[in-house]
């Protein structure tokens, strides 16, 4: 990572925790975890609360749908770490790798329901262009997506537009496929808190 404090600036308790994670999981501590453990009162504690609420809190979207949105937004931002982490988590949540790959490579022909497809299209446009009109949103609503679902999707979008920027600016190390799989298991078991 580009800031040395994120590699070394931890107290003894956190250092011990990282050592135990490495020992028992036999995987490295992802840079995303290091970031939220560094001075958690400034960013990590509240960022985890918000991300958990967006990704695991009450919603008509399934966990798999929200992980796919996270991967899709991250792809629009070209954020390699977050695409790797959340496409692995979406594949595992859906138990369907081809569906996730299709949504990320060729959305229009992907075998996903019209409402989710329209929502992903809207999130991609908002993320890439920073602009969105009422007409874009009407297309989502007319695909059968409720207002509440749109709001829930926008919360996922905000969480990952934040995390993607931090991952790329701070230089999160992209993990191996095995390490991303281990992270996906953890995120489905424990969430983001």
């Amino acid at each position, binding site marked *: 990572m580009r800031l040395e404090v994120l590699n070394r600036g931890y107290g003894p308790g956190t250092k011990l925790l990282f050592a135990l994670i490495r020992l028992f999981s036999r995987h490295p501590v992802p840079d995303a975890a290091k970031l939220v453990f560094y001075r958690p009162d400034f*960013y990590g504690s509240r960022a985890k609360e918000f991300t958990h609420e967006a990704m695991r809190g009450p*919603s008509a979207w399934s966990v798999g749908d929200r992980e796919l949105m996270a991967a899709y937004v991250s792809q629009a931002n070209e954020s390699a770490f977050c695409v790797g982490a959340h496409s692995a988590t979406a594949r595992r*949540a859906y*138990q369907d790798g081809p569906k996730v790959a299709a949504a990320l490579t060729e959305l229009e022909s992907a075998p996903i329901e019209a409402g989710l497809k329209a929502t992903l299209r809207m999130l991609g446009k908002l*993320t890439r262009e920073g602009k969105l009109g009422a007409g874009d*949103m009407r297309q989502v609503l007319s695909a059968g997506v409720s207002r509440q679902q749109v709001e829930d999707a926008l919360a996922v979008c905000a969480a990952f537009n934040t995390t993607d920027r*931090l991952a790329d*600016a701070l230089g999160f190390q992209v993990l191996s496929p095995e390490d991303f799989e281990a992270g996906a298991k953890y995120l489905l078991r424990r969430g983001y808190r």
Partner: protein
Amino acid sequence: MSTEDMPAKDVPGEDRPTEDKPTEDKKRAAYRALQDRILNGEGRASPQHRARAFSNAGLSPPLDGLLGKVATRPTLVTDADFAAARAAGFSEDELLELVICAAVGQAARLYDTGLAALAEAAGQEDG
């Protein structure tokens, strides 16, 4: 992909509590709490620098280069951007705070843009 530890099927979201406040308030309130903390709470960077990083406006070199990229094209950030900011006297803790403010600020603007488009579209539907 191994099948161990897989959930039985895709996990639905929790049921919406019927008598609670609408859940969108909880999600938005959680993001507002994050914004409020990084802008107004105790920090190593000045509140003025944090506010400017958040709004991506009014920054001077070399911070404008680093933080402008965080907001608009974070994949273009380089080691040299951080080196220039360190050479201007900013500590690692200050830079981390300012990078966080820039990232949250841009995401907050996108969130607001999406919610405004939704309000407009939903208002037209009602009308």
